């Protein structure tokens, strides 16, 4: 009995600590553009949202998608097209990106879900590579050049997103909304079922849940939110290219999530921040980024599977090794 209370106390402490950290974090993000170059911050926020969306699928549903770049980059193309060619305002253009990514997610997810585990990952990789080839050859995407000169536009017809502070707070707002949405999904009854599927799929099936439908729903949600990040990025950086749909991008988001902590709420965001910062540092040095990425992958998988936030949680709650 005494043991239970100790665990409870620990959980309460971490709960309180979490809330404090979240508030501090938001305050820091609000103040940040005055201290750090906003473009750099916005890059981090877009990828942080991408990673959190990815984690919804990996950390909470237990499905490793190796093709999430299709949703991120695909949405970037859709949004870029809507903003530049159709001249839509940014919020509508981003919505196009989200819907497009969701549809793409429904198609890819439908095929991938027909197999489990390792095969699921390989199917997502193959299908997103197929999408990459479409993008490479299609005129809609501008092929190798991509779509350049995407206008930032007027948010709700009123706020000029060319202004660096305007665009930053817009991105921050979308990021916070996105993470909040993920948090709500994860903590809803739907989210509980996802987690039970991750823990023990057979038991979930025997309890009567149509597991395939839940997996597909999670896949589509994850794709849509990844699309939100991609569309946002297209508006911020004003272009969409093949890099965003390449398999290397799919690998990057996995790394961000793994490094930050699979299955933790803010871990992927922190992982994203670190990876972006690392890429920035390495960009000016001689050291190739892919080697650094690969090394971090290998080290994390071998000795650091819980990721940064996962390790911290484990230390705090004194949980046994997974």
């Amino acid at each position: 009995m005494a043991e239970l209370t100790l665990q409870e106390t620990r959980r309460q402490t971490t709960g309180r600590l979490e809330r404090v950290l979240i508030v501090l974090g938001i305050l820091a993000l609000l103040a940040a553009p005055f201290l750090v170059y906003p473009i750099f911050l916005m890059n981090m926020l877009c990828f942080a949202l991408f990673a959190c969306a990815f984690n919804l699928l990996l950390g909470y549903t237990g499905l490793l998608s190796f093709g999430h770049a299709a949703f991120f980059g695909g949405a970037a193309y859709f949004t870029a097209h809507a903003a530049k060619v159709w001249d839509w305002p940014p919020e509508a253009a981003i919505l196009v990106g989200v819907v497009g990514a969701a549809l793409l997610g429904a198609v890819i997810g439908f095929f991938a879900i027909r197999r489990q585990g390792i095969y699921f990952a390989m199917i997502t990789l193959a299908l997103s590579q197929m999408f990459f080839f479409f993008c490479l050859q299609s005129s809609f995407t501008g092929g190798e050049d991509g779509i350049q000169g995407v206008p930032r536009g007027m948010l709700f017809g009123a706020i000029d997103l060319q202004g660096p502070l305007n665009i930053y707070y817009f991105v921050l707002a979308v990021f916070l909304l996105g993470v909040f949405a993920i948090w709500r999904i994860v903590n809803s009854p739907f989210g509980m079922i996802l987690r039970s599927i991750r823990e023990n799929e057979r038991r979930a099936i025997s309890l009567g849940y149509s597991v395939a439908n839940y997996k597909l729903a999670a896949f589509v949600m994850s794709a849509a939110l990844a699309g939100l990040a991609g569309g946002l990025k297209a508006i911020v950086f004003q272009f969409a290219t093949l890099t965003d749909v390449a398999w290397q991008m799919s690998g990057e988001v996995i790394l961000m999530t793994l490094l930050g902590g699979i299955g933790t709420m803010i871990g992927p965001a922190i992982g994203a921040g670190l990876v972006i910062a690392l890429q920035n540092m390495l960009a000016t040095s001689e050291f190739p980024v892919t080697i650094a990425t690969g090394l971090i992958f290998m080290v994390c998988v071998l000795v650091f599977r819980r990721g940064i936030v996962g390790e911290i949680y484990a230390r705090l709650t004194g949980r046994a090794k997974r």
Partner: protein
Amino acid sequence: MTTILGIPIQAFLGQLLVGLINGSFYAMLSLGLAVIFGLLRVINFAHGAQYMLGAFVGYLLLVHLGIGYWPALILAPLIVGLTGIVIERVALSRLYDVDPLYGLLFTFGLSLVIEGIFRYYFGVSGNPYAVPPLLAGGTNLGFMFLPNYRGWVVIASLILCLGTWFAIEKTKLGSYLRAATENRSLVQAFGVNVPLLLTLTYGLGSALAGIAGILAAPVYQVSPLMGSNLIIVVFAVVVVGGMGSILGAIVTGYMLGLAEGLTKVFYPEASSIVIFVIMAVVLLVWPAGLFGKDA
């Protein structure tokens, strides 16, 4: 001039041959993946990088040590196999008890490192590797002209694939492999040194990729990127054929290569994605893969 469905027969057979060549590599590589996956339960994402490594070993041996194709045909797989053994001993073996997805992620990271190193030193452009003099030129078969080296590739891949199949299905060592694939711990409890078997299997799989690489060197250019785009297609091949059957992996590789070749003839724009499309169709109709041995 004779035509098939409106295409001149020379062009048709030419593309079919290209398809058969590609299929040879798909077969060899998916065989290696299947062998490694069967026993180790790890998807060796580094397979493409090991293929590239094999080609580069051949290239470097030639350029720096003057060692030609035929010795390289033995040395390349040997060296790549040895690196595979080291990787398995030092790192991969620690991942057997955790979720197999971590094996995929580890080998993915490894492939990034290997590719990154070679890109750093060699850039992204390809380096030529000459066809060995013995196999230069071609033979006129009457209905088509067959470049000798291409014919050699097909024959060599058939020998390697069928040889591996034979070794696994018909020999004593193969029986250890098959049994351990079914029930690793029980075979260990019988006193078979399964950890060593695992190491050797990864080494063998890596060596298969390596020899495919040296076979590929005179056909495609030797480039640091030659592995990564290929491996994704091989994944699709493996999803179609399943990894539960060695013969299935081999047959599927050749078939999909031919399918790709045929598509190039009639609908060239689709040739880079036809294998993915076939994969999608197979997933719809035969969820357990063509040879149905795994879920």
